[in-house]
């Protein structure tokens, strides 16, 4: 096996930016242009780098690629092992893209402790990349916990009124789940004598006896992160209090770490337990879909509405994963990307008006289409993408998942019941998103404060267009996106079905 340095390099790029920013002077009377410039440049270079290494990635190979390994703590069997495959390649791209967008969107919004802010954003990027790249449980856990720290500060320092409450809740809630996972990780690692994931999967029988417990140890940590109903209570707080960029990253990437964890660890390591748990997880997913949507409808705060809609959308992803077939998992991964794009874009859009009006109450708005037509049109497209209009990205993921759930062998005798309930989320999505859209953009423009609103500026438009590019691309030509993960997912499903069946 040849070691490739590119992934390590990719992870380190944001750190380079951090070091540069550390040494930049802060001028008292000037804008923090140099810091912002370096942070943006770092994020964009990381994004470009992640795109540039794509030719090195072979879509036909199901196993890990571009691996980099090194010894770390030999006594414990802990290694440094990073690599990428079909499960993570899109997550990597999503991370670099969302991070670049989030950093770009903070240009005007952040007015205090600018230096620290960007350092945390870049640290967060490294952490998230590490989570998706790590192929060693120990390394994974370190990155997993590491992402909490910058996010904690991002919410706690630059957040809204209740920011301290929200940040502590976010930290503790996630931490509590992670500890269960830590116990499971240690058990697995000690039983097998290694923390290296491919080896662990190959030597599954060493810890298979305890897999029902281990599954839940991992599952609860991931379920909190997703969040799966009923572990979602931290999400509305974190989202409403986080600064715009924080919300974008939170919705765009952090939640995907949970769903990714299920696919990366739970399914291959505990296939029998996963198959057994599928009906339970799918049921929770469906409750999340419907419950999230209904609660979302009752919200008057735009950001909270979008936050609850995340619970609903992530429910689809969970349903796709626990359909345990090729279409379902691929749909789930793609839906994860879609949710990152649509909800990320929605949070960005909320940020644009929040910056000007300092309120997010739907009743404060109305008729914004007149004041900001470009904003209204882009919002419309994003809203439609979020509610799964065919031809835009949301539909591709949702439909694959719904299709897969009916054909699932893991969901008992009548899997179509799951499908039917999940599909009602499609109706509900239209109900709550259109309510929001109508409330904000339609009706007469009679609030004088709204009449003075400016439309999007060029920078904001550029960010929106980059979102829209992917929203439309995935919507009408998702073949290449599916192809990037097909081999890996087929392999994974084959393993799960073989192990669970035999």
């Amino acid at each position, binding site marked *: 096996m040849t070691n490739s340095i590119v992934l390590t390099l990719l992870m380190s790029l944001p750190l380079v930016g951090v070091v540069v920013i550390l040494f930049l002077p802060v001028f008292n009377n000037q804008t923090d242009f140099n810091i912002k410039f370096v942070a943006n440049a770092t994020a964009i270079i990381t994004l470009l780098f992640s795109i540039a290494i794509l030719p090195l990635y072979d879509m036909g190979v199901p196993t890990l690629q571009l691996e980099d390994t090194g010894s770390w703590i030999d006594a414990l069997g802990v290694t440094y092992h990073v690599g990428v495959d079909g499960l993570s390649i899109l997550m990597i791209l999503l991370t670099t893209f969302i991070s670049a967008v989030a950093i770009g969107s903070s240009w005007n919004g952040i007015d205090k402790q600018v230096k620290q802010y960007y350092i945390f954003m870049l640290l967060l990027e490294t952490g998230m990349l590490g989570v998706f790249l790590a192929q060693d449980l120990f390394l994974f856990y370190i990155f997993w916990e590491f992402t909490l720290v910058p996010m904690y500060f991002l919410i706690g320092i630059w957040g809204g009124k209740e920011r301290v409450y929200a940040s502590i809740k976010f930290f503790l809630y996630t931490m509590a789940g992670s500890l269960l996972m830590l116990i499971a990780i240690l058990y697995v690692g000690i039983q097998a004598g290694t923390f290296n994931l491919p080896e662990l999967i190959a030597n599954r029988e060493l810890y298979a006896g305890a897999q029902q417990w281990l599954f839940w140890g991992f599952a609860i940590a991931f379920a909190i992160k997703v969040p799966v109903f009923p572990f979602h209570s931290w999400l509305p707080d974190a989202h409403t209090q986080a600064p715009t960029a924080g919300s974008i990253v939170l919705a765009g990437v952090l939640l995907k770490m949970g769903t990714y964890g299920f696919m990366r660890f739970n399914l291959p390591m505990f296939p029998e337990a996963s198959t057994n748990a599928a009906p339970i997880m799918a049921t929770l997913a469906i409750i999340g879909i419907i419950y999230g949507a209904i*609660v979302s409808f009752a919200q008057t705060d735009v950001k909270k509405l979008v936050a609850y809609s995340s619970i609903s959308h992530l429910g689809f992803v969970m349903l796709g994963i626990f359909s345990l077939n090729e279409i379902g998992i691929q749909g789930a991964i793609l839906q994860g990307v879609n949710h990152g794009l649509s909800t990320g874009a929605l949070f960005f859009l909320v940020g644009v008006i929040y910056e000007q009006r300092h309120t997010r109450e739907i009743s404060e708005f109305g008729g914004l*289409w007149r004041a900001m037509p470009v904003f209204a049109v882009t919002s419309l497209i994003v809203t439609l993408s979020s509610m799964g209009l065919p031809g835009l990205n949301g539909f*591709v993921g949702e439909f694959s998942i719904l299709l897969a759930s*009916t054909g699932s062998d893991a969901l008992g005798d009548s899997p*179509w019941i799951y499908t039917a309930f999940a599909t009602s989320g499609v*109706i509900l999505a239209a109900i709550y998103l259109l309510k929001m859209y*109508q409330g904000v953009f339609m009706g007469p423009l009679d609030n004088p404060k709204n009449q003075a609103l400016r439309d999007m500026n060029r920078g904001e438009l550029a960010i929106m267009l980059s979102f829209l590019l992917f929203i439309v691309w995935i919507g*009408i030509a998702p073949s290449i996106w599916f192809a990037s993960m097909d081999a890996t*997912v087929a392999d994974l499903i084959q393993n799960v079905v073989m192990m669970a069946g035999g």
Partner: protein
Amino acid sequence: MNAFGLAPLLLILPIIGVLFNGIVGRYFLDADRSTGEKWSGWFGTAMAVGTFIVSVLIFFSLGANDHHAEIVHLFNWFNIPSGNFTIPWAMQLDTLSSVMTLVVTGVGSLIHIYAIGYMHGDRDFHRFFTYLNLFLFFMLILVTGSSYLMLFVGWEGVGLCSFLLIGFWFDKPKGEGILNGDAARKAFVANRVGDFAMILGMILTFWAFGSMEYEVVFESALDLYTTTETVFIAGIEFTIPQVLTGITVLFLIGATGKSAQIPLFMWLPDAMAGPTPVSALIHAATMVTSGIYLIVRSNVLFEIVRDSGHQLFGIVSAPDLVAIAGAVTAVYAGLVAFTQFDIKKVLAYSTVSQLGFMIAAVGMGAYVAGMFHLVTHAFFKALLFMASGSVIHGMEHGHHHLHEHSHGDDHEEDDFDPQDMRFMGGLREKMPVTFWVYIIGSLALAGIFPFAGFWSKDEILAHSAYGLGVGEATPVFTFVRWMLTIGAFCTAFYMTRQIKMTFFGEGRHEAVKHVPESSPLMTRPLAFLAFLSLMGGALNIPYLTGGGGEEASTPVGMTASVLAAEEDKGLNLAFEHWLEHSIQAFTLEEDFENVVGPNGEHFFTHVPHTPTSLQYDIAISSTLIAVAAILIGWYVVFRVWPRSKEDPDPISQWPVVGFVWTFFQGLPLDTLYMTGIVKNIFNPLARFSDVVDWNFWHNFVHNNLIRDSFVALADFLATVLDPKGVDGIVNGVGQTARNLAEALRRPQTGNTGNYALSLFLGVALLVAFFVFAS
């Protein structure tokens, strides 16, 4: 030489229009209003006409291609190789989609031209044409898609355009804009309920037949059916009729959403909040007919279910359910229509009612008749809507004129409504062109010989009377027949009422005196559509000679092969001959003619098709009913209808009729939905869920139970347990160290001299020690 290669233009041209008007339209308008309008309007129209030309070329190419379907593959959409799930973007060009594209682009082009006149002066002129072109784009995807999933793209897309266009005037003052937005939302959500069923239907189709493409699905459905094989969906065994019953019922629900049938029809009347060209294009001629298109497209599936006799829950078979839904809607909407005062709402309910006719027709297997009525209805209903738009436009002008010339006078400004027929009357002389085209449209709608509606409606009634294709009229057919007859009576009745209230008698508002005739941009498309409404029946004229009454009494279906073998087709049944190449039930019957089932039954021994010759008894009786309705209507109007808004409704005082009148005026189903479900169930449920999530789960469980008990525990530890117990020990250790340190502190004076001295003394001591020790 064929034009199939041009098919992508059907989608590209409207998108160019969307981009042009969406991106630069605003600048053109801002730079110079009148030039901008010309650019916006005519550019959009040019794109529509372009698609019409392409449609015509494809039409001729199909003729030259022996009517064989052509599939134009664009590129892959869904493609999950490991899951065997591939759906391409592909266009199926056959005679059925050709009919639909011609209607959509033809009527669409006329409405584009009309809209240039109608929308003149609107501040969002460019936005309107953006939406119209976008609608065209999605509608063309819907009718040309080669798979259910592509159809669904258009299906949802037109729903979106409908939402956008209903809410087009979203910021009208006095709360009207908000109402428009509500109407738009209602339309979208109602459509989504139908789409919910559509999605489930498509998923079921995929797992049963491994594809969503029409050709594959139909072929394997028939294959499996004739070999009586079963399918496994997630490990459960189903017979083909079972699966198909599920699929067809789900598709029916989808169709009721889009085509405004019971139980999902209540959005369509509200949709009249949109600009009138929209009502004509989307809510009369094209979008709302996509439910009929869906069922006609799926004719094989419906016919297999009919053939198998499989019944849903053992009660009713799926095709019969379709027919019943259509027939009931036809009557219900017809009854509601005559209680309305808004000129467009009457037409809206009329549309619902006519869509019911079509649904009933396709439910009975009369696919050609349904499509025929769809086409003629597109002509005359678009005509009626556009003419009503012309009336509204005129009333607005008249009112505006009145307003301009009467400063200071107090008019009854506030309750004037340009769409309320109670303010109209006597417009015959003011708007002669509009009046005459309205008459033509109404006669066509009422089904008076020889207008287009006569021929198409008659075909449907003939089907229901004689059960053509099925061999005999089942009780369901008879039920449908009588319902449709009542529906036909209502149709003629409310149209007469509308014409009399609008065009005859005295003007009931000052504004009427100042009403001008609309501009040629509006009236010319009207005249053209009037021509089509007059002559549209020629598309599918049955044989007028050849046995007539004799055959009518014992109608025997001609098999498709006989029809195909016919040499001299002439103009007669041209439409049927055209469509029989796409309605697979015809062609499949040929293929499977000799297949004999296990019980010796022949598959598709019946072939749904239109009567080959005119059924005189039906024709005459239905005409008489229509004429009677017109005469009664003519007599009744102005005797019992209130002439102005202040007058009470005398008819509501009548013993039985009054109850029906009041009942239908209150829109019982709509009230049931909006008050019963939305207001009383859904909204409280949402609020309740929010309370549960926030107050209980978020606040109580997390904040009170978990956090507060933790804080209480922490308090206890911090104030009681810790200081007295643990802290005592810890503090004792600390205190000792502290005392020790206090003592050691003293020598530290901080004076360098002291330190240096002690250093030297120390060295001196050491030296002395070593010297004397050794």
